[in-house]
């Protein structure tokens, strides 16, 4: 757009360039606000019929089923508030679990319970971590939908009281600001400023309290474009892919550190998921 002005040069080049920039920016800005408004309307229309509820119902069923070689349900699984307690646990995760000797998020804790309580092999427990249509439904995503739905409306309350948790938070913060990969990208490249977007998707500024709260409390979510419910592990996995980083291992310390960092920064806000997103 600015190329002809540059080539012609002349005294008024600066002025002309500025004018061109203004002209170029105006319709874009206009289009952006309208599109964002329209997307907000679209979300509101979808809100009362959030298909995430279908995952919640299925997840509750799986949670209560006797499964694995030991044929026990997950109702003895301790997600942080005692065996079998589901209400409010997600608002306090990730946290340090003494029995496992590590900080865990919901997904890694569920994997732990599936192997320890139900006697599944690690491979079996990890069979379908992300759903892919009718033939490849994910039990994990369904259970995540169920457990997180039981924290809806409760304030985020992630603790750093244990030294392991404080260490993981520090690590997560470091990862958030770390730049690397073929694009010299980091989380902060997209999530460090206000009003950034990818195509029409607004990107939350995760360095502000408000941005972090709004983003973290609306995951997991039903992605209309994918027809799937996506967990927070998926969100991070896909962010890593978009940054062209090495594949983020599901339930790894790296994924948990980043989750803990973001969850802790959302403290105080009411948890409002499973949500619905484009």
């Amino acid at each position, binding site marked *: 757009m600015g190329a002809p002005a540059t080539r012609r040069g002349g005294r008024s080049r600066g002025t002309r360039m500025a004018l061109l920039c203004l002209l170029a920016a105006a319709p874009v800005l206009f289009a952006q606000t309208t599109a964002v408004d329209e997307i907000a309307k679209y979300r509101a229309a979808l809100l009362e019929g959030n*298909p995430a509820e*279908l995952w919640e*119902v299925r997840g509750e069923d799986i949670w209560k089923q006797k499964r694995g070689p030991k044929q026990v349900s997950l109702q003895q699984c301790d997600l942080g508030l005692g065996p079998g307690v589901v209400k409010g646990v997600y608002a306090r995760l990730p946290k340090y679990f003494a029995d496992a000797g590590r900080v865990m998020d919901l997904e890694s804790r569920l994997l732990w319970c599936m192997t320890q309580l139900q006697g599944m092999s690690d491979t079996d427990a990890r069979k379908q971590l992300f759903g892919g249509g009718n033939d490849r439904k994910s039990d994990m995503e369904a259970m995540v939908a169920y457990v997180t739905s039981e924290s809806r409306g409760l304030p985020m309350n992630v603790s750093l009281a244990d030294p392991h948790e404080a260490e993981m938070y520090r690590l997560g913060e470091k990862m958030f600001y770390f730049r690397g990969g073929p694009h010299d990208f980091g989380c902060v490249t997209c999530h460090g400023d206000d009003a950034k977007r990818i195509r029409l998707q607004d990107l939350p500024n995760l360095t502000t309290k408000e941005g972090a709260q709004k983003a973290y409390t609306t995951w997991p979510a039903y992605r209309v474009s994918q027809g799937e419910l996506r967990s927070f592990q998926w969100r991070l996995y896909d962010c890593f892919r978009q940054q062209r980083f090495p594949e983020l291992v599901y339930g790894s310390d790296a994924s948990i550190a980043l989750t803990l960092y973001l969850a802790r920064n959302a403290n105080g806000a009411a948890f409002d998921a499973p949500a619905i997103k484009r």
Partner: protein
Amino acid sequence: MADPMKIRANVVGDSTEVKVLMSHEMETGQRKDAQGKVIPAWFIQSVTATWNGKTVLAAQWGPAVSKNPFLSFKFKGGAKGDKVQIAWVDNRGDKRTDEVIIA
């Protein structure tokens, strides 16, 4: 077998408002898989809602309806404690029927 529906029914004034979420792929028949083969159409073809055995809504659907469809409608009448039953049949002959008590 298909997953259960999620149904809510509430009395609003002199009518009943029903909201239904159905779990279905709703394949259009226009998409192709990774091998380039057409994915056969698979969608809910008929939906029926009954209240105390009386049909209050009958619909014929096609492949243009979204995946995991949401249906909301009102009908005159209905009281707390009455039963509303929703049934669908898809083009493969799969069926699902669920019911809810009006709240």
